[in-house]
């Protein structure tokens, strides 16, 4: 079992979880309009600190939990960092922005020597990080998990969302008929979980279930049928009579809120109260899943369903039970739902009740069905060397034509996505299985060290002061998990899609069995996909089957 024993929120609204909750219940919002915060960027509404540094905020959020130094430094404690872009604001000055190095500095500042795990799954990262913690504790890999999430805004991020026409220049209005788009926000949030029953008396609650599903539809547009969110809700729902509310993503874009309302209705949850917190904090990206889970948990301890600030009039085709005002409840469970670029969706169900300890179970055992290695100058498929005439980026195009050839979107992908796509095509074509049949029993879990640095550089070149034309087609690939979405979309995989930033392939090997903790998952397409520039890359991708 897992117990949430401490948490902390730092936002422009307030310092500390209870202070943030007080501010929210008093109807305060940190959102305001910025005219010239970043040069070149058009005016936008956001929730921002006066100054923000990614690593400093993460460290302060962990410190704010006031946990014993011995627990934070323990070899039994793993740090899990949730972020979309970490230190990317510094890219204009330095390329030393590796997320895993940031995570390591954060863990080491508390004397923790274990190699941390970075979850970088676009906007669902925070909930995925909590699911990772749950899996790690319940399989006994570690006894405690420190999950910290943060993103800070910069020209890089704001220009990208503007290029997607996703931002509202007014205050956001989740689920409202007049909603025009989202507002971004900065925050850092930390949750500490333990499996140690001796600490259960300090428990604020527990994660009862978690699920991650891909829409298998599009890398930036939400599914019209709410496919992934619907599947997540069904997986974690449990007894819906016990649910106090569903805390939705509620970004206030036309398509997100519409999609969620469809997923909620398909799952039969239309009568359960729904709320969204973006009107107080904006969309805090890698922090969102943590911040919104923590606030929901503490609100439920006070018997409150927080009101949806900015909402006035139902504005989705499917009605949901939403209210601008706070409501009271005596129920003890809630669902936190998120969705993000790459077609990914995640949900957890959390209880405030003290629940009895359950024994840990061993990690799943699996076999390898097929494997492929691709480097800049050759490939080896199931032990057999594949010859090619091209080298570097052209090699990927040559393999694409040889093994797929019917998917022109390949040429729109960045090198990381092309690498993962080609590796998966080679791997799957070597198997005797029917392809392109919708399935939710296969996960796609990839990892690397440098995230999507090659494409970050390419996007950065489109936002230079003397050449400012932010490219949406490049921006979308500045999220490393897009490659997992591309594979899910191509193959109609509705299962988990996840991306981790790790120190090396060995570390992926240590955690990959955790993907089988999602009960439907019977096979995992997984591997290391590293790409430092468009001609320098290496992939080792395998298909694993649960035994």
């Amino acid at each position, binding site marked *: 079992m897992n117990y949430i024993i401490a948490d902390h929120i730092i936002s422009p609204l307030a310092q500390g979880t209870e202070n943030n909750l007080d501010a929210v219940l008093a109807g305060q919002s940190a959102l305001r309009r910025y005219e010239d915060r970043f040069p070149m960027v058009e005016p936008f509404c956001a929730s921002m600190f006066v100054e923000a540094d990614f690593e400093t905020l993460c460290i302060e959020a962990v410190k704010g939990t006031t946990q014993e130094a011995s627990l934070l430094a323990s070899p039994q404690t793993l740090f899990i960092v949730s972020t979309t872009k970490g230190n990317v604001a510094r890219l204009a000055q330095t390329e030393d922005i590796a997320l895993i190095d940031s995570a390591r500095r954060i863990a080491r500042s508390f004397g923790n020597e274990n190699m941390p795990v970075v979850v970088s799954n676009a906007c669902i990262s925070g909930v995925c990080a909590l699911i990772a913690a749950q899996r790690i504790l319940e399989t006994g890999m570690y006894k405690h998990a420190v999950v910290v999430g943060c993103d800070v805004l910069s020209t890089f991020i704001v220009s990208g969302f503007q*290029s*997607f*026409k996703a931002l509202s220049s007014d205050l956001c209005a989740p689920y409202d008929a007049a909603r025009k788009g989202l507002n971004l926000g900065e925050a850092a949030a930390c949750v500490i979980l333990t499996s140690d029953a001796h600490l259960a008396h300090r428990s604020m609650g527990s994660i009862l279930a978690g699920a991650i599903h891909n829409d298998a539809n*599009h*890398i*930036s*547009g939400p599914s019209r049928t709410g496919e992934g969110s619907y599947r997540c809700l069904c997986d974690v729902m449990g007894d819906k009579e016990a649910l106090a509310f569903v805390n939705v993503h509620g970004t206030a874009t036309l398509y997100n809120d519409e999609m969620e309302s469809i997923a909620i209705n398909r799952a039969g949850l239309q009568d359960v109260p729904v709320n969204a917190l973006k009107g107080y904090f904006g969309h805090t990206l890698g922090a969102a899943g943590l911040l919104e889970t923590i606030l929901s948990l503490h609100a439920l301890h006070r018997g409150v369903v927080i009101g949806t600030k900015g909402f006035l009039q139902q504005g989705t085709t499917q009605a949901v039970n939403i209210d601008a005002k706070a409501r009271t409840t005596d129920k003890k469970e809630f669902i936190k739902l998120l969705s993000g670029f790459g077609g990914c969706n995640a949900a957890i169900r959390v209880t405030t009740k003290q629940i009895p300890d359950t024994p840990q179970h061993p990690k799943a055992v699996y076999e390898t069905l097929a494997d492929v290695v691709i480097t800049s100058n050759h490939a080896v498929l199931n032990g057999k060397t594949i010859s090619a005439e091209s080298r570097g980026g052209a090699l990927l195009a040559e393999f694409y034509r040889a093994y797929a050839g019917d998917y*022109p*979107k*390949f*040429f*729109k992908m960045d090198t990381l996505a092309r690498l993962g796509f080609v590796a998966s095509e080679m791997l799957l074509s070597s198997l005797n299985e029917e392809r392109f049949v919708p399935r939710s029993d296969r996960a796609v879990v990839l990892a690397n060290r440098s995230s999507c640095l090659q494409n970050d550089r390419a996007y950065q070149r489109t936002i230079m002061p003397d050449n400012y*034309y*932010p*490219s*949406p*087609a490049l921006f*979308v690939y500045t999220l490393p998990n897009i490659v997992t979405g591309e594979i899910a979309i191509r193959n109609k995989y509705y299962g988990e899609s996840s991306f981790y930033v790790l120190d090396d392939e060995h570390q992926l090997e240590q955690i990959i069995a955790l993907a089988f903790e999602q009960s439907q998952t019977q096979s995992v397409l997984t591997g290391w996909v590293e790409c430092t520039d468009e001609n320098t890359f290496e992939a080792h991708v395998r298909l694993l089957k649960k035994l």
Partner: protein
Amino acid sequence: MDNNLLKQQIIEALNLEDITLADIQDDAPLFGEGLGLDSIDALELFVLLDKQYGIKLQNKEEGKQVFKSVNTMAAYIEQHRTK
């Protein structure tokens, strides 16, 4: 406005590998089945108009009207270009 120049710019901006000028008809719908373009391509056409012609479209609805075909795009550019 030279339609072929515009088609070339579209092919380059949207990475339309294996598509030639002859594959894009002047009055055929740009979006829909033919070229397999999606919502990100539409946003990338906003960037093309801004970068090449100094035209800033305000919203997606406006884009839908302008991006109906190469002909409608070319006509819009003729009327509104600032460079």
